């Protein structure tokens, strides 16, 4: 996420329905959903 300049604090990453931590290695072909976590109230 850091390499892609995506804020770890602003998003959670989900792979195959499971939350993954920001140090997780992802492989080519993995589908990662980035879920924004901040809302504007």
């Amino acid at each position, binding site marked *: 996420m850091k390499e892609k300049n995506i*804020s*770890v*604090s*602003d998003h*959670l990453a*989900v792979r195959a329905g*499971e*939350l*993954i*931590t*920001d*140090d*997780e290695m992802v492989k080519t072909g993995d589908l990662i959903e980035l*879920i*924004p*976590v*901040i*809302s*504007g*109230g």
Partner: protein
Amino acid sequence: MRCRKCGEKAVINMRQHRLSLCKQHYLEWLPTQILKFINKYGMFSEHDRILVAISGGKDSLALWDILWKLGFHTEGLYINLGINSEIAYSNRSMIFAQEFANQRSLTLHIADIKTDYGESIPEISIRTRRGRDKPCSLCGLIKRHVMNRFTIDGQYNVLATAHNLDDEAAILLANTLDWSLEFLARGKPVLPSKPGFIKKVKPFFRTYERETAAYAILTHIEYMRDECPFSTDSKQLYYKKYLNEWEENCPGTKLRFYLNYLKAISQGAFPGRQESAGQLSQQRCPQCGQPTNTGSLCAFCKLFDKT
């Protein structure tokens, strides 16, 4: 990354707590933390009737889920604001709230602004020419009035809202930048009951927004992920992004910012303002009976005054 408690694969790393946890231990840890804060700050007990303000978003549904699992006596209140152009924001949020309540056999009350008062929030905003192109200030005024009416009429003891640490830190930053002393004096997570108002509490005030989102995802809570169309470019989002940048470079920044503010308040910061924030006018609105300082109709009733 491994779970600190069992060594299994972690699903969340909370750098501010220097703690990574697996799914099972995170779903045990967060409710335990919330219960600890409820008790530590004297928010409520198992004897209280608690009304939970529900928006259909991750925070309010996660809070309701946790309070329900902890065994507290809760009912929910969803206020349909009628923000339904484009993405049907209000109606879709209501469906998430209803489905959540139905799945758990919980009672959800629905207040529909258009049905009850004849106009939606955007329509009131246009008619009264308040808020320029955004009805956000009206939205806060109307929600506060309706929540207060529900809590009094329903004889609840406590109103719980799902404001999280990111919300509180962003509001604190905004009020500090503006030196809004009146607001700075009343940013506490527990506001005691006063004549005309019941006690208000924020059980998530020490919980990062990222943590409530993780809880919602891990417990498979279906929630409204779209933002209110009027929150685009909101100042709160702007401040939250800045705070998160600081947080990434210096974990714990948001927590220290808010907790040290509470410490300053408890040590007497803004003394005159704290006293006035605790005081309440004895005047009542002649139309709705809610407390007011205006000397006539309250700000809410003035919105609908045709005279």
